[in-house]
């Protein structure tokens, strides 16, 4: 089964995934019309700034067992049987924010959502784009990411690639593993900038 895999070191913090996600979770599903919708569709992936101001695309890990699911006061959080995706049923959610205390990644937000009940705030988070995937598309954040910080693939494939990269970097004569040169440069610049400001 394919899933979204995050490669944090590659993220350049461009935030393209955010509007793509919001659009995918809008009523009209087109960027131009989505921005005109009320309530405004909101992203479910959140690019946060790390200690060196580097980007990090933070999204639901669909943990198993999922702490938010165990915590939910109303049984609104469940696991989608086919895809193992952790889902929130907006019609059962009472917007109590108990799940906010349970999520160690801080990825759940509370607001009125175009796909939820009208006029009521509910808990909202990544649903692995189940609707898009059912239509044969890939998750919107992956489609939008131009630097490969988000990929959609079998976990095994990604692990093998990573193991190979590490193995290569360990063998004699190899340099640092596989960051695209631009990305590496950008990160180094950000880090030194922050160090300078601090110093």
């Amino acid at each position, binding site marked *: 089964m394919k899933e979204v895999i995050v490669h*944090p070191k590659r993220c350049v913090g461009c935030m393209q995934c955010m509007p793509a996600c919001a659009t995918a979770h809008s009523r009209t599903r087109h960027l131009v019309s989505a921005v005109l919708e009320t309530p405004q569709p909101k992203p479910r992936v*959140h690019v*946060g*700034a*790390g*200690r060196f101001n*580097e*980007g*990090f695309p*933070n999204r639901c890990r669909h943990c198993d067992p999922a*702490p938010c699911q*165990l*915590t939910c*006061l*109303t*049984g609104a959080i469940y696991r989608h049987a086919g895809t193992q995706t952790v889902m929130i049923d907006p019609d*059962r959610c*009472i*917007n*109590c*924010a*108990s*799940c*906010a*205390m*349970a*999520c*160690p*990644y*801080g*990825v*759940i*937000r*509370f607001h009125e959502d175009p796909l939820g009940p009208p006029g009521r705030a509910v808990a909202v988070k990544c649903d692995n784009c189940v609707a898009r995937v059912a239509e044969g598309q890939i998750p919107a954040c992956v489609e939008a990411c131009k630097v490969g910080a988000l990929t959609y693939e079998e976990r095994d494939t990604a692990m093998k690639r990573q193991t190979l990269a590490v193995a290569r970097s360990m063998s004699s004569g190899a340099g640092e593993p596989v960051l695209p040169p631009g990305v590496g440069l950008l990160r180094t610049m950000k880090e030194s900038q922050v160090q300078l400001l601090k110093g």
Partner: protein
Amino acid sequence: MKYVILGNGIAGVCAAEAIRTLDLEGEIVMVGDETFLPYSRPMISYVLDGSEPHDKLPIRPADFYESMKIKPVLGQRAVSLDVENRRVQLADSTCIDYDRLLIATGADPRPLRAAHMDLGGIFYLRTESHVRQQVAALSTARRALVLGGGLVGLKAAYALLKRGLEVTLLITSGYPLSLQVDEIAGKMVLDELLRRGLKVLVGRSVRAFEGNGVVRAAVTDTGSRLPCDMVIIAKGVLPSRDFIPRQHIHVDLGVVVDDHLQTSAAGIHAAGDVAESVDISRGCRWVNALWPEAAVQGRIAGLNMAGRPVVYPGSMSRNVLRVYDLDVLTLGHANPGPEEGCRIVWSGGPGKGRYRSLVLKDDILVGAVLVNQVEQGGVLCALMENRVPLRLSTSRLMAPDFNFACLLP
């Protein structure tokens, strides 16, 4: 193997489900006082405020017992427990034998001792049946009195305000939520409620009620008379453990459990509001009567009962209160006494629309209060549960843009 589970609240339900993941054949008997389907207890205050209908309370399907192959024995309480002969006795004198027992009897409202408690219109807020009666009484109620400034008291007061009643909240301590939050956050909650028309009386308790069949007034310890036609008592809860023989099972405030949620008697586990486990942030035994703890404890107790040893890491207090435009999230030991040697750092406060307070013991985060912007509460909670020494400065932890990425190397 015969499992008997006392209590069909969330702890009992999660335990039964966990047992069934490992043991499809064993007999499971579930004894419960309430006959309603397993339901969301915290949701009853939403039924009281009118935002959710009563029929949305159940959290399991109507065929729950059947599909899990559980024999339900509902509508009565266990009244005694014979540890030596592994037998439970029910109110109607029937006896049930067990091989493994789970005590998941939860908690009951702490009773109020006052004269004329039998008058109509005086309620506790703990069960779906309580809320059903309260909703029925709303049509004739105009003036309500809520006793207790804890979470349930505030939720009740908020619900009745939303229903358009005139509400007076009586609290014995100096500010609401004094057990959960510090004075600054308590004051922010109070201000918000006062702004919305709540009347609050501090340092006062009720000694008697007056009325003719139904309540008409409450008399306080200072002798003043408060007219009211509805009263909700919310003075906290007490673990339901009267039937437990203390010579066989170690009972403190709650039933004391070890790190596998077993009581001091072999083959008997306890979980949920009735259990007293080690509190991670306080470092001592504590009853954390909370839904998430009850669910997790039930699950882990069930796995242990079915023969798979699973360690319970300990409990931690945590709660969110949302009233009108204010969100209050508390974690761990959020309001320590001065003698406990904790360092407290805070920012924001009343008028700022945002407040943060962090409690540290050495370099470990042991408590936190967040007022508004509570989305990152879980990240702090994970730091506390895992007792990770802080690498980040506290100002960074309190900053509005704090997020998970800040913790990455």
